[in-house]
């Protein structure tokens, strides 16, 4: 299991406009390795594999249905950094990082303070050779009026 905790985030709420929904967005999630499942907690930096979904601070979960083993030759699973030239009209490389959205409305409403720290526990699927599969560039907390 891999544990990662964010820096404190300000809760994006407006006193005159209660939000109808809140999403946690993980950006540029890499999926070139084995698949995994992840649990998300708010202000539960000590959460572990025994914490579960009924615990205070549980916000949601997601799976990353990932590439798995590479069957190709060397370089097959390395997305190019950029198109070869302006006329490169090929599809994006299959391993281009993705965005993941987790709906967290109920969990965010339960947060009493003005900041939250997001903890993500990632559980690699059986047979995985990568104990720390969770890799992404940033996360965003978005509320919708």
């Amino acid at each position: 299991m891999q544990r990662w905790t964010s820096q404190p985030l300000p809760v994006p709420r407006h006193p005159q406009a209660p939000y109808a929904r809140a999403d946690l967005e993980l950006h540029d999630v890499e999926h070139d390795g084995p698949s995994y499942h992840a649990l998300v907690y708010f202000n539960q930096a000590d959460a572990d594999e025994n914490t579960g979904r009924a615990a205070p601070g549980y916000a949601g979960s997601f799976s990353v249905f990932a590439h798995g083993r590479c069957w190709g030759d060397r370089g097959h699973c390395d997305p190019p950094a950029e198109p070869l030239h302006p006329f490169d009209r090929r599809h994006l490389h299959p391993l281009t990082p993705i965005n993941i959205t987790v709906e967290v409305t109920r969990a965010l409403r339960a947060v009493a303070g003005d900041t939250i720290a997001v903890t993500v526990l990632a559980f690699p699927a059986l047979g995985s050779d990568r104990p720390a599969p969770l890799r992404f560039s940033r996360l965003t907390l978005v509320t919708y009026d």
Partner: protein
Amino acid sequence: MTLQVTVPAGPPARGTLSLRKSVDKLSDAELANLRQAFAGAMALDDDRGFSYFAGWHGEPFNWCEHHTSLFLPWHRQYLYYFELALQAIVPGVTLPWWDWTVSDSIPAAYGVDSRAPDNPLLVSQVRIYRSGQSEPAPPRTPGQNPGVPPLPYQDDWNQAMAATSFAEFQTAIEQVHDNVHVWVGGIMQDIQSAAYDPLFFAHHAMIDRSWRLWQTQNPGATPAATLLDNGLRPNGMTVRQTLDVTQLGYEYAGTAAEAPGPTAPNGTAAATPADASTQTSAPGPGDRPHTPSEGSF
């Protein structure tokens, strides 16, 4: 390419729709036909065969779309072409769906079956198309991957179905889809190998059915206009051409209904949508394809 089929532009096609059914409602004969079709496809090592189509999704072609705006359209046309390949082997066979909103296990049809010792729906190997690579498939590990919630996924599915835009629906249903893949385990848990498991197609028939049901609840809600004329790999069917399953020649039993027309004898009672998934029919003398003027849809 021998399997390329172009959905005709212009007037709607007229013909009898194939009905996809819940795997739990297949008759013994329908299940036997499905297994015969898969076995036949697995015996072909060319571009009509199972390995070729499994390779569309993962190794070696990698044409699938995940966490992009084309997830649902791409997989709809994928099932369409694969189902045609099966129907070329066993006419009339259709892909059943696995309803993991009510089921907490892998359908028996896809497991060990004493009546079918060589059940082709029970994955046994990954044979990469035209590569010479062939390996035994590790067994499925349903519910054993750590952290993954147990089936059924009724609540998550309901939440996805409540979406009010196509983009929101697609994002939500793909997340449920990801959970099911990882829940099943084995080769289903990774994109590269997933479609080599026949269960993949029952899972994706459920995803496609979900989109069809959502479409009936949200008529006119489509992908972004800028995407509609995008061609989907490899055959170039456009997103627009995937929007109406009846124009692809199929429907999901349970969303179809039939009513007698004005020329029917004695005002036969209409089948309800709930009845449709268990209805049976037999061709009569001079049986013709159903058309809208005959009261079918």
